[in-house]
């Protein structure tokens, strides 16, 4: 299947909204795993997707404030899963992660690096109404 036929394929959307709190990240992880299980992802790919969504949610918790929720949209196409993660107070421009093997301590700096390692495509996309979205895509069998 080439890109053109894939683009006209059916897209099914699952949306999840969780409180911006550490204890609810596990719900995002399991919901995304359940969505991925409906596509033809391998067990290893599903673990990658769980980790990527957790890193994205963790960043929403660590780098924003307030009582807002974290919104996750899963767009399932036959051969890929696109995860869109949006917090409602994304004010800092995302920085690049630190160099591999030189972590700066507890604070980490590994989140976005891990996401980029596990997903096939990652982008921060500005939205019309303020907050930035993290959009990440993984292809089945890539």
């Amino acid at each position, binding site marked *: 299947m080439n890109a053109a036929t894939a683009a006209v394929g059916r897209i099914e959307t699952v949306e999840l909204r969780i409180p911006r709190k*550490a204890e609810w*990240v596990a719900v995002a992880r399991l919901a995304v795993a359940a969505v991925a299980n409906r596509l033809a992802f391998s067990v290893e790919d599903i673990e990658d997707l769980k980790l990527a969504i957790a890193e994205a949610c*963790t960043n929403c918790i660590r780098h924003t404030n307030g009582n807002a929720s974290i919104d996750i949209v899963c767009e399932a196409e036959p051969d890929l899963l696109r995860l869109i993660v949006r917090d409602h107070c994304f004010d800092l421009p995302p920085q690049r992660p630190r160099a591999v093997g030189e972590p700066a*301590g*507890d*604070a980490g700096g*590994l989140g976005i690096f891990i996401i980029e390692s596990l997903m096939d495509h990652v982008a921060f996309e500005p939205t019309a109404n303020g907050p930035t979205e993290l959009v990440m895509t993984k292809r089945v069998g890539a």
Partner: protein
Amino acid sequence: MDIKVQVRESEDDAYVVELSGEIDVYTSPKVKDAITELIDQGHYNLVINLEKVRYIDSTGLGVLIGGLKRVREHGGSVNLVCTNPQIRKIFDITGLVKIFGIFENEQDAKKALV
């Protein structure tokens, strides 16, 4: 979807921290507390056993890295036991294999401390 932390004294003043479950942004403070307590008590040679850990993310890695930094200031070290390929892979892609000793079983991890 939780973490169990078990601390065991071993030979030669080494301590083993055995973790089981999932280490994420919610559960990693519990892991951090256990490691911090050991270090505060003056124990700088640690084996952290991840054999029963099914999931770890950057917050868990951050806790391990933070522990390693602190024990190194006292000439100590942290060795990991890790057999789960998915967990191992995360140490590979982050380059952390280069800064942690990672072993297939607790015996080897303890021996390598000295």
